[in-house]
């Protein structure tokens, strides 16, 4: 380790040139991660380069989830549950729930304590990662829906269930401090919801296409968000 007064390799000054400073400047340019277009746009929109970096790095933190989502959506696009009813509608909320469960929180994100000591609020980091998961899930879901030839208007039917199931998965994950528990709770809740929708409407996709179910989805999402807010308090997470 090197004294801060002499940062860099050869710190001697020759002919008025501080080689240490030159090296540090060169290293800074060589090593730096240049923000891409999405990150620059996100930084402007979010007014925070830190949140923009959290947004664009989320996929790399959730790579197994991302790969499995592509596979599941690909399969969902090929399989239909009925005429014009692709399986994508049913797997999209579950896929998002799994991603959210692994996204952030005490006992889940390995650097959570460190993040909690930073100026950017850890709640904002959580929201940003949730947005990244939702955005990826939505884009992949839309692509799969388009590939399956299903009506695009109905495709958005799974957005509200996705929010509700994802909130539940996150609440369970944070409360239990286990992403696996969260993902399991999300998947179980969605299976129950789908089966209940089928028995009520007679259609396998009833849980997605029935507009009467939207208010309960919103209420469930709000309740689970409150649980997350309580369970992810630093004083609880660090016990």
């Amino acid at each position: 380790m090197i004294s801060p007064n002499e940062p860099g390799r050869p710190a001697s000054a020759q002919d008025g040139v501080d080689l240490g400073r030159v090296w540090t400047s060169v290293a800074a340019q060589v090593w730096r991660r240049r923000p891409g277009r999405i990150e620059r746009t996100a930084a402007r929109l979010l007014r925070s380069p830190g949140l923009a970096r959290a947004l664009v790095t989320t996929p790399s933190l959730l790579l197994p989830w991302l790969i499995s989502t592509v596979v599941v959506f690909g399969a969902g696009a090929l399989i239909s549950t009925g005429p014009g009813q692709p399986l994508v509608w049913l797997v999209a909320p579950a896929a998002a729930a799994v991603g959210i469960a692994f996204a952030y929180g005490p006992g889940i994100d390995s650097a959570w304590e460190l993040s909690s000591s930073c100026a950017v609020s850890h709640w904002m980091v959580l929201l940003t990662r949730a947005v990244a998961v939702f955005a990826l899930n939505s884009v992949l879901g839309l692509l799969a829906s388009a590939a399956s030839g299903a009506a695009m208007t109905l495709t958005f039917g799974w957005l509200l269930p996705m929010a509700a199931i994802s909130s539940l998965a996150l609440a369970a994950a944070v409360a239990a401090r286990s992403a696996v528990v969260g993902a399991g709770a999300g998947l179980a809740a969605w299976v129950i919801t789908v089966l209940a929708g089928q028995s009520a409407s007679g259609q396998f996709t009833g849980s997605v296409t029935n507009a009467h179910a939207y208010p309960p989805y919103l209420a469930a999402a709000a309740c689970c968000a409150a649980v997350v807010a309580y369970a992810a308090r630093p004083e609880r997470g660090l016990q």
Partner: protein
Amino acid sequence: MNVALTEIHRSFGKNEAVDGVSLELGPGVFGLLGPNGAGKTSLLRMLATVLPPSSGDIRLLDRDPGRPTARREIRRRLGYLPQSLGYYPSFTVVEFIEYFALLKEMPSAAVPKAVAVAVERVDLGAKAKAKLRTLSGGMLRRVGIAQAIVNDPDLLLLDEPTAGLDPEQRVQFRALLRTLGETATVIVSTHLVEDVGTACSEVALMSAGKIVFRGTPDELTARGAGHGVGDAPLERGYSAVLSAARS
């Protein structure tokens, strides 16, 4: 004073982790010693603003961390190395340090150079572009130290910073601490009394949530004269004070 604590308590259920600690600290390197479960980590977490006290008054960098705007300002000027760092295996050394520099709200334009300086200060230049999953435990600890000092903090909190460092790196790290302590308040929690003896201008010893000794390393050494157990004089002072506190 960069740190002013008045009768701080922190409990988890029935367990009183920190029990009435009062402390005032300005610039310098301050060593926090104590056995496992003494309350060092809980105290450091409160100073890092990630854990609020159950009762008592905390002022950091002349601000009240209980107020959100003040807490945000404190965090911009804070460096923190948790006991369990936690890292993202897919990040490179530079990406990890940059990420936390940005979360500390450093100006974007200043980040690349600050990261380069921090990487060089912990002597990880050769590994700057290496993925964290490929690094050894000692190197990861140095990455943690680099992210803690990247914003040139006024208050630097290091929980077991030398864990995993080899003897040569520990010597270099102590020199770095002394330099940082010239302008900032550096608080080092450690089990290793030799770190305290060579790097710290002042030391406190915690036991059962209380500070049972505060003074210079020489004063702690003096407590062990003719008493205590240990190979080094400072270790004998440490054990003598702990024995007295427990009896």
